[in-house]
């Protein structure tokens, strides 16, 4: 796969990633996902404090020619939204695993990441 991966984080089949720091999860989309979408132009507003369940849609992300729902990779409460990504969505294309993170979730059950894939597993899953 010709896409960048980040080790030590977890990947969902719907192409979101999550990295855990205690019970705080940072969520974004994979390099593969940003490439497939193309130039991202908009992220639908997310309400702070919104409760989400693993696998449930929490927002939508748009490029010029596509729109994609983002699913919460873990359950919990959205505690922070990346204002930079919302105002300058291009940073998601440029740095999907870094500055282009999308939300932070206060996680209810950290063991949920066991339902997700490792970098290696995701790489295998997205092998074309």
């Amino acid at each position, binding site marked *: 796969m010709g896409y960048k991966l980040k080790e030590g984080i977890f990947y969902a089949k719907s192409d979101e990633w999550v990295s855990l720091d205690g019970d705080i999860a940072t969520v974004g989309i994979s390099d593969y996902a940003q490439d497939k979408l193309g130039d991202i*132009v*908009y992220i639908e507003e997310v309400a702070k404090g919104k409760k989400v369940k693993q696998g449930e849609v929490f927002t939508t992300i748009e490029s010029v020619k596509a729109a994609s729902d983002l699913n919460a990779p873990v359950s919990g409460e959205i505690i922070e939204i990346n204002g930079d990504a919302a105002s300058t969505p291009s940073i998601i294309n440029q740095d999907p695993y870094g500055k282009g993170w999308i939300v932070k979730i206060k996680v209810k059950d950290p063991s949920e990441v066991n339902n997700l894939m490792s970098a290696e597993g995701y790489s295998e899953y997205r092998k074309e």
Partner: protein
Amino acid sequence: MKLIYEKSVEGRKGYFLREDPYKEISLKDCIPGYALSRTKKELPEVSEVDVVRHFTALSKLNYGLDDGFYPLGSCTMKYNPKLNEHLALLDNFIYAHPCVDEDFVQGSLQVMYELNQYLSEITGMDQFTLSPAAGAHGELTGVLIMHKYFSDKGEFRHKILIPDSAHGTNPASAAMAGFNVVEVKSNERGGIDLAELHKLMDEDTVGLMLTNPNTVGLFDENIEEIAKVVHSKGGLLYYDGANLNALLGIARPGDAGFDIAHLNLHKTFSTPHGGGGPGAGPVGVKGHLIQYLPTPIVSYNGEKYFFEDVGEKSIGRLRAFWGNFSVLLKAYVWVLSIGDEGLKETAETSIINANYVMSKLKKFYKPVYDRFCMHECVLTGREYKEYGVKTLDIAKRLMDYGFHPPTIYFPHFEPYAEETIMIEPTESESKENIDLFIDTMIKIAKEIKTHAEIVKQAPHTTPVSRPDEVRAARNPILILKEINEDR
């Protein structure tokens, strides 16, 4: 080019209106102060000549059907006869008010009544509504009829089946009727996967919306079986008439088991697209569904044409008035101009033209399905990816050679249809124009291998090239805010 606002000069005037002949009446006595705008609205001030020049210049930035080949797949960009346009502008038609008594508009009603008859005969349906303003409006009509049909029977079905190859309007229309969309996969021959259809069609499903020929330009050979499966579970079969051009005089949706059908008069029946509309999307139904049609329909009692209320089971009204009358009239004139033989010849020629294009181009652009097609063929630009050239680039390069590009990236469904180039020559194109297009496509295929950059940077000859759509979406400028004197 400058906007009309950027040509405005204070005091210029482009209209002829009489002076106020009612000086004794004060405006303040007519309209209360709270409702009167305190300032004049800031529209431009330009002369008639300014306006004519401006819009003539704007028109020249457009590419119309009379400028050349327009092989947009799925859009049926056939020639729009001048006769139709002329007759649609007769004073007695264009000045007819929609709410006058029927005895004032017997002519207009006759056109609607007879067109309804012709469309019924051509499609094998029993009765049409001429109300829908466009294909998608027709789809909405159709799915609302499905909704009403089931709720009338006391059944509350939630799902609707739509193939992965369908136009986006199908699922969007179905959602407007409150249905959950279930996608049906296409099989390796380009039709509906029958096994999957058997599995998915159940008693919680209202039916199937099917475009046939479908969006890969193939007639679904299993149509009889499909109809059987849908009907066996009490469902309704919906015909999306986007591609009816291929069937005119050859086969009729009504004979193939379809219960509801919408047509696109702006595709099949030669009425112009107008830069995106207006068209018309009449919907025909079988007898058992007539009672649900939108209200009203035009009837005739042997002496007089009149509007008839459909009754309490009607889905209701779809729009303010009766239909896009001038569009209906153009379609009516087209049918009369060509008659039965002409309809059949239309379908045959469109099919021959499409197969001719496919047979000549398939070595260069791999077809999605390598079989004889109907009125359009779907090729792909996949193999040019290795040269860094996208299907989009091929489309843009065609403009440099004076063609409107075909439809691209539609249909899109994995694994069969990706990087698609959908070509519909229609019956209107002569062999030498088609040959020129074919030669150009082959030339571009060669250019890609030798001069990829030229293709990737195309178009080079158009008024603008590759407008930045990302910028437009990230920083939307949707109206003129300030006039920039430097333009």
